[in-house]
């Protein structure tokens, strides 16, 4: 059926063009957000208010997850390392896994589902209930007043959340390996201290969290602003935020890791 094939090809073409158009639109929106950030920086109170919602309210899930991830790492690490008689290296394993990879990535994934989805839903609902249109009619730019403060709050809180995640994770590893299993405390900490390099491990981890913070929050504010103003539109946008930012985090993590750690020892 040649007609069906033509329709099929046309459909594919439409989808590709739409996605590229949307990508371009999202990039322009991102630049616009940066350009209109002046108000947020001048009136920092706006950002601080959002820091509470995105940062402080994400603390519980970040801390609890961090603790459990660290505890599992301690347990699994001990299981494997003790076969080679290297159980005192469990501190190194826990710290490096957390600081380099799990801290930034898992914290960002949690952040996307906790704070990113909330930002999208809030902005989407503001749009659906004509609050953004009302603001525009009051001669107040919604990108400057609503989008930019949420964006900066997300970008600022992400590195702190990831740092807390790693810290409490290391503590979780300590609890399991040293307090419960009985690995020597001195070697646990001293091996960790020897192996973890500030520039190579910690700074690279921080760079990752900053990149993830920008990606997740930019996706969240864009999806909220772009949501169609209906209940289905907002719920769809919230789902897209979580899916897109999770994929973006994992993809970006691979790219960043391949630039930062290329098997040098």
């Amino acid at each position, binding site marked *: 059926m040649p007609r069906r094939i033509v329709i099929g090809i046309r459909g594919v073409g439409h989808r590709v063009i739409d996605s590229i158009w949307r990508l371009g639109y999202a990039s322009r929106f991102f630049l616009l957000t940066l350009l209109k950030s002046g108000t947020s920086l001048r009136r920092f109170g706006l950002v601080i208010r959002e820091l509470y919602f995105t940062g402080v309210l994400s603390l519980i899930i970040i801390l609890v997850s961090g603790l459990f991830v660290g505890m599992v790492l301690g347990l699994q690490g001990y299981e494997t390392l003790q076969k080679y008689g290297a159980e005192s290296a469990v501190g190194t394993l826990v710290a490096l896994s957390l600081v380099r990879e799990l801290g930034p990535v898992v914290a960002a994934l949690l952040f996307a589902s906790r704070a990113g989805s909330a930002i999208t839903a809030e902005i989407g609902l503001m749009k659906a209930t004509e*609050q953004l*249109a*009302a603001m525009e*009619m*009051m*001669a*107040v730019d919604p990108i400057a007043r609503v989008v930019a403060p949420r964006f900066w709050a997300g970008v600022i809180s992400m590195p702190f959340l990831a740092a807390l995640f790693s810290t409490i994770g290391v503590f979780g590893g300590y609890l399991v390996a040293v307090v419960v299993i009985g690995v020597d405390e001195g070697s646990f900490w001293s091996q960790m201290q020897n192996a973890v390099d500030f520039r190579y491990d910690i700074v690279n981890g921080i760079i990752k969290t900053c990149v993830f913070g920008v990606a997740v929050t930019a996706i969240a504010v864009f999806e909220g602003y772009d949501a169609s103003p209906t209940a289905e539109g907002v719920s769809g946008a919230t789902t897209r935020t979580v899916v897109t930012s999770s994929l973006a985090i994992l993809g970006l993590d691979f790219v960043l890791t391949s630039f930062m750690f290329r098997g040098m020892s």
Partner: protein
Amino acid sequence: MTPEALVEIKGLNFSYGERSILKGINMTMLRGKVIAIMGGSGSGKTTLLRLIGGAVTPSSGYVKIAGKVVHELKRDDLFRMRRKMSMLFQFGALFTDLSVFDNVAFQMREHTDLPEPMIRDLVLMKLQAVGLRGAHDLMPAQLSGGMARRVALARSIALDPVLIMYDEPFTGLDPISLSVIGNLIRRLTDALGMTSLVVTHDVQESLKIVDYVYFISEGVIAAHGTPAEVRGSVAPFVHQFVHGEEDGPVSFHYPAEAYASDLKLETGFA
């Protein structure tokens, strides 16, 4: 342009793509008056408000406010003009994350450098005008529909605009709130010397308070006149609309093929 006209609309056309929404609208709105724009759902009333507010650009024709063509203004000038006008949205569109007080204070804080004690006095005065001074520390979620609409009204008069547009201000209100809102629109317009433009399909309530009515049907002005003229009108559309008759120029049935042939009934079978 007569000296008192605040809004002047000439030959206004607007279409979404192929679909023509407004076709050659002419209107003049005098200062200090309450003007109603009526018409069925989907007749282009809300689009007209968006055109006056400069949210969309007409295909041809123009909207002039105080002598300035709206769609030719630069963004900064448009924003400057919007500070002198305001809009009451259908369901109020209060900012859900701000209290009643902060909602009314919003524009004062965004656009002026007034000291906080003065903002407090002004906000309480605006809330007093709509009878909700006592509700100033409630959140929008705690308000009834009518109260939310009144807070939104207080917010829209925050900076003493010269023009207020109301998008379906009576929708979904009980009879008491309905007449409260209606009377507030009239009283505030007179007290503040504003011009009010009410888009509505609530005929009875709005005929009580307005000075002049325009009927829009299918993108053209079907009729216009004072409430007394409208009530006495014999024009078929106006008569149908004002008296809420089911059939008339606006047909009850959506255009369709002949009923019998749609049901596959051949003549002679029945």
